Each structure stands twice: as structure tokens, then as C-alpha cells.
């Protein structure tokens, strides 16, 4: 005990248990999304309405693929942590824990689905191109 500084003893004792970590993460991810989202809206929106071949070719290009991957990765973490704040405001106890787990799981599942789809699109377009 004697070897601990006062600061060290205080760390983790606040209501959050993690200091300002969560808040700082929201700030960082919102700055990242502020740069990514405007372009993404048009990259994603312009793909809607295409045939299956067109949609695959669209997202197989490097820029749309990387941008969509980044927005999904950062956006889903930002969503999960943001939704957690809302749940912590309105719910308590086991219900809160359950719902936070649900929201985190949902965000990870969506991330995995999008990354899988993007990877397969790149693969499919290589196969389709070399077949022609």
C-alpha cells in the first residue's frame, strides 16, 4: 500500500471504472467518421439500384471496398459504445448488462457480415474477370 501513489489508488474508482476512456473513444471515432461518412454516403448510395454484377463490381474496386470496410469497422464500434451510453441512462442491473451485450454482439455481427461480403466480392470479381 505504501508504495502506491495517491493517483494510482484513485485510478478505476470513479463511477465508470475506466476514467474518461469511453468519452475519448467517442471523440476519436467521431472525428474519424466525420472524414469518412460524406464520401461514403455517395459511394454506397450510387450502388443502390444496380444489377447483382454491377453491385459486386462496384464494391470490388479498391476505394469503395476500403471505405465501406472502414466506415463499418469504426461506425459499428462507435454505435456500440454510443448505444451503451443510452442503455446506461435508461436501464439498470441485469437488463442493462444483457442489452449492452446484445448491442455489442449486433455491431460485431454486422461488421463481420460486411467484411465477409466485401472480401467475397473482390474474390468473385477476380474470378469473373479472368473468365472473360
Amino acid at each position, binding site marked *: 500500500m505504501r508504495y502506491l501513489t495517491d493517483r494510482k489508488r484513485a485510478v478505476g474508482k470513479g463511477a465508470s471504472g475506466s476514467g474518461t476512456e469511453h468519452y475519448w473513444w467517442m471523440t476519436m471515432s*467521431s472525428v474519424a467518421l466525420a472524414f469518412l461518412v460524406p464520401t461514403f*454516403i*455517395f459511394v454506397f448510395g450510387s450502388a443502390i439500384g444496380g444489377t447483382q454484377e454491377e453491385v*459486386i463490381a462496384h464494391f470490388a474496386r479498391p476505394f469503395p471496398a476500403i471505405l465501406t470496410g472502414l466506415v463499418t469497422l469504426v461506425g459499428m464500434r462507435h454505435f456500440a459504445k454510443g448505444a451503451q451510453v443510452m442503455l446506461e*441512462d*435508461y436501464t439498470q442491473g441485469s437488463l442493462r448488462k444483457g442489452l449492452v451485450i446484445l448491442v455489442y454482439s449486433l455491431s460485431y455481427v454486422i461488421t463481420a457480415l460486411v467484411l465477409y461480403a466485401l472480401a467475397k*466480392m473482390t474474390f468473385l470479381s477476380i474470378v469473373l474477370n479472368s473468365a472473360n
Partner: protein
Amino acid sequence: MAEPKRVERPLSPFMIGPYYRPQMTSMSSILTRITGNALIAGFVLGAWWLIAAVSSPGYFGFVNWIVTSWLGYLVFAGMAWAMWYHYLTGLRHLLWDTGKGLDIETAEKLGWGAIIGSVVLTLLTLIILAIF
């Protein structure tokens, strides 16, 4: 070691409505929360559509039919507005974090800016996407 006392922390009281007159500041704030969380609907629909694009043509036809139906367009148009609104009020948060713009007059102006700005940006987005 003494038994750690379990404290049921109180929830933050929900003030809007019977206790607190709706104002530009509180309304634009709660809309940030609503739009941020609502955006998950766009990611769910988008991820489903991308997965369908790497599935069988029949399955893509089914999901694409939903995405390009009036309901699908309504959802994505709504997502465009939610994104722009959340974007603008997100920037407002980042400004507030620097300690600026916190007086009531400026905060209310920024609220109107986010509401009007998000509608204008959404219309612009839809017009540009319709042309290209």
C-alpha cells in the same frame, strides 16, 4: 477486507415532458441520440443487401427487391437525413468540447443550423444521387 457495498446508482431522470418544457437545446440533443441509434437500421439493411449480393441470384433478387422498393428507398432516405443530422450535431459536440458555443443563444442557433442544414444536405444528397 470489508464487504464491498452494492450501490444501486440512480438513473438519470428523464426530464423532458411533464417536468421540463421542450426547448431547442433539449430537443436537438435528444434527436442526436435518436438519429445516432436509428442509424443501425441502415447498417442492418445495408449489410443484408451486401450479403445477398454474394449469395444466389434468387436471394439477391428478393433482398434487392426490398431495398429498391418504396419502403427501401424511404429507409435509406431517412438514413441519409439521420446521418446528416447526427453529423452536424456531432460536430456541434466537438465544438462544445473545446468550450465554445455553450451560451444559450449560440446553442439554439446551432440547433436550428443542424435541423435546417440536415434537410438541405439530405435534399442535395438525394438530388445528386438521382442525377448520377
